């Protein structure tokens, strides 16, 4: 970022025409856009939150209408939606914790999967160009929900907070001096590390995806249009191909991260249950 800033300054000052580089390279500022609505209030909205709100409305409309019009004999779109639901139900939840235990967590994992998928896909939707999960708060909310859920299920299924903590912090079959080291680590794991890892994994993927993709497109624009030099056009075409490839890759990453998030939610909830059940 500093480099691009330096170059921009240089451009302004020295008037170099060819080797100064594009001025609009993506930076972390893309993820901290200015507030554009209700500035200064606790419900201020910036660009990413606006994208998130729009995507929410779209998601509610599309899936709401799909569900409303759902028929016994599904059409193609309904078949696809049903396939996704069953994918979450069987491949995410039941394969992790079994049908008996998992049934009550299907709606939660579905919410997380569908929401994360649609929000992640905003990163490749023209006009949005940034994932709706690309501020830390959204992945953090997902992760906190997971945290609350596995603490709840742990407390309930183990028969109380004490028993849950005993199971988590003092695993059986370990010599007691080890607990001095192990128990704080285990506590950190269930209180901070697990939700933190969930949050950072999703957020960082979206950040890096946006940076790569935006860089590729800015460079394409720079080499083909801005520099006015026919010799540089092939370089621009290469950048464009790279951007094309990265777009496809980002679509894949969007689905993959939604899948990973919901699977880990199921895994964490499952591990909060007593071992011998």
């Amino acid at each position, binding site marked *: *970022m*500093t480099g*691009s*800033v330096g170059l*921009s300054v240089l451009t302004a000052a020295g008037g170099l025409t060819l080797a100064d580089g594009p*001025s*609009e*390279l993506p*930076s*972390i*500022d893309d*993820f*901290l856009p200015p*507030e554009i609505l*209700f500035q200064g*209030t*606790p*419900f*201020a*909205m*910036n660009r990413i*939150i606006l994208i*998130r*709100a729009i995507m*929410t409305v779209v*998601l*509610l409309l599309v*899936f*709401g209408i799909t*569900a*409303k019009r*759902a*028929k*016994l004999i599904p059409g193609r779109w309904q078949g696809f*939606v*049903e396939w996704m*639901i069953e994918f979450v139900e069987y491949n995410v939840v039941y394969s992790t914790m079994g049908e008996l235990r998992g049934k009550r967590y*299907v*709606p*939660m994992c*579905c*919410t997380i999967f*569908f*929401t994360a998928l649609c929000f992640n896909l905003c990163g490749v939707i023209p006009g949005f160009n940034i994932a709706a999960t690309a*501020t*830390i*708060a*959204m992945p*953090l*909310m*997902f992760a906190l*929900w997971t945290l609350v859920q596995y603490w709840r299920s742990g407390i309930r299924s183990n028969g109380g907070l004490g028993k849950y903590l005993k199971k988590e912090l003092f695993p059986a079959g370990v010599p007691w001096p080890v607990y001095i080291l192990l128990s704080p680590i285990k506590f950190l794991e269930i209180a901070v590390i697990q939700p933190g890892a969930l949050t*950072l994994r999703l*957020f960082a993927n979206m*950040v890096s995806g946006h940076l790569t993709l935006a860089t590729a497109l800015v460079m394409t624009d720079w080499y083909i249009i801005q520099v006015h030099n026919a010799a540089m056009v092939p370089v621009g075409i290469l950048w464009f191909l790279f951007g094309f490839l990265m777009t496809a890759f980002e679509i894949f990453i969007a689905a993959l991260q939604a899948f990973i998030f919901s699977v880990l939610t199921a895994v964490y909830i499952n591990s909060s249950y007593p071992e011998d059940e």
Partner: protein
Amino acid sequence: MTTFAEENSGIDLFIPKTYDIFWSLIILVILAVFFYKFFLPRFQKIFDERAEKIQGGMDKAAAAEKEAAEAKKKYEDQLTQARVQASKIRDDARAEASHIIADARTRAEQEAAQVSANAQRSIESQQQQALVSLKGEVGSLSVALAGKILGKQLESDAVQSDMIDSVLGDLESESADKN
């Protein structure tokens, strides 16, 4: 155009803003309510209905198949029965026919025997009559013939009768010799 990074350093990325938390939470709650209360129950209902329908259809098909099998068995039984009955009727008819033929033949043979016996009897009686009448006529003819030969009337009936008898006796012995 980027500005100098005094206001936004890298760590800012990882510190959630209050308003961001607020909106994320609102949106997540709305979406969770949507998925929990509407979207998934709706599809669950569709899935259940579909399973029920398929199950119902399969049961119905099984019932229909069973019914068809029963009907087929019934018809086959009836067919077998009918075949047995038909062959029985045929056998009876054949037996009766041969019976009738045998009766008719017996009756015909009896009648034929009767007819031929009657004929035999009538031939015998006619032969007898012929013999008797021939006997009378031959006598008178012989007498007339002998009178003409002898030229005179035989006077006494006794002589006449003796002559006839002797002639007849000759005739009979002659015919016996010829035969």
